């Protein structure tokens, strides 16, 4: 991959009448991991949503993995994006391994990969526990296990270190190492500037919807 993984130019997002992002520029080169830091309400999660192609920008232009934002072309590249948001995307009624097997089935990946990555993230012993009765940290590990299983070319982590102990940082390190090796990129959002700086190539600061 030689084209930028992410290229945003003067991106603006309005929710109703309220501007949330204002003229944001961002680019992520192949093999690069970028960190985003900023106070509450600064627009970090919204920026992540734009890069994930889930939020349509109100202004500006951009591309993610070669697909222009705001066009139908983004459908083509969405399976190459891995997102772990504030809230883990798990089904509480299904067990941890069932959650991963469901994802594998939808993504077209062999379902036995679910058992393998569950062991990789240290949850093999809890495989049959309902996700709804697992801790927030365990649910976040499922989100990360999903990324290990699907091997996305763009890794997006919101509040990357929330709910994870220092041992589990190993999982994030592995995900980032593998995506770099594939020539992909990553965008990490965190309040913990210290941990963030250790894992990314550069940190962008965002305040009141604009990069500073």
């Amino acid at each position, binding site marked *: 991959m030689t084209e930028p993984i992410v290229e945003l130019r003067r991106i603006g997002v309005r929710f109703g009448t309220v501007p949330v992002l204002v003229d944001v520029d961002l680019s992520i080169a192949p093999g690069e991991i970028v960190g985003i830091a900023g106070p509450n309400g600064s627009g970090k999660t919204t920026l992540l949503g734009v890069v994930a192609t889930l939020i349509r920008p109100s202004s500006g232009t951009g591309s993610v993995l070669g697909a222009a934002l705001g066009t139908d072309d983004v459908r083509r590249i969405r399976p190459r994006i891995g997102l772990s948001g504030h809230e883990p995307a798990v089904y509480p009624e299904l067990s941890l391994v069932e959650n991963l097997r469901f994802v594998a089935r939808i993504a077209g990946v062999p379902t036995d990969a679910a058992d393998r990555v569950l062991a990789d993230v240290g949850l093999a012993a809890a495989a049959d526990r309902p996700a709804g009765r697992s801790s927030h940290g365990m649910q976040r590990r499922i989100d990360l296990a999903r990324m290990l299983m699907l091997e996305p070319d763009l890794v997006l982590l919101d509040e990357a270190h929330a709910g994870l102990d220092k041992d589990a940082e190993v999982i994030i390190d592995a995900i980032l190492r593998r995506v770099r090796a594939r020539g992909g990129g990553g965008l990490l959002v965190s309040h913990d500037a210290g941990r963030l700086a250790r894992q990314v190539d550069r940190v962008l600061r965002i305040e009141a*919807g604009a990069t500073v």
Partner: protein
Amino acid sequence: MTKRILPVLAGLALVAGLLVALSSPPDVLQGDFVRILYIHVANAWLAFLAFGVTAAASIGWLVTRRAGYDRVAASSAEIGVLFTAVTLFTGMIWGKPIWGTFWDWGDARMASTALMFFVYLGYLALRRATPDRVARARRSAILGVIAVVQVPLVYFSVVLWRTLHQGLTIRPDSVQMEPEMLTALLVNVGAFSVLYLALLVARVRLARLEEATEVHEEAPAGSAVTAPRLETGP
């Protein structure tokens, strides 16, 4: 100039429609009650037209995402609901002396028209419930395209089911109506068409003004968050 001329034209057309309706001959069976039908049928046709316009404008929005299509779709739906209400009301007023009842459950056209009314009330409720402008336009455009299926169902209900309602009086190959009555009907259809146009233009203009008066905040959302003013620990 349109905003002055159209309402005046509509008023004049309605007066003309009323005069023609009053001067047309009474019906052999229905007597003078036939005159209600000129308003009833005209409103029904204009309701169909209004919902057809809603569907077409909804498709326009889905293809182009231009706000103008959404304004037309929503405005036309509101007017269509109004015309449908008038259709139902005048139908009931006419039905009592002619059929002996305000409402007959065995009549497919009455029931299907009432259902069409509820479907588009739901369309308006969906719009009111969606605060975000783009989401509102998208959801109601989708419903606007689905809901228009009601229109042919209502129109052909008298053909599909044997009901009290009379069958299709005006078909592409024949018209089963006295010339004076047909004239009265067509003049009223024309009059209500002008009324529809006047209402549509006014409502779309109002929608544009409503959007323009929305207060667009300049300060980004995050600028309202400041550092807390609390003592820190020892």
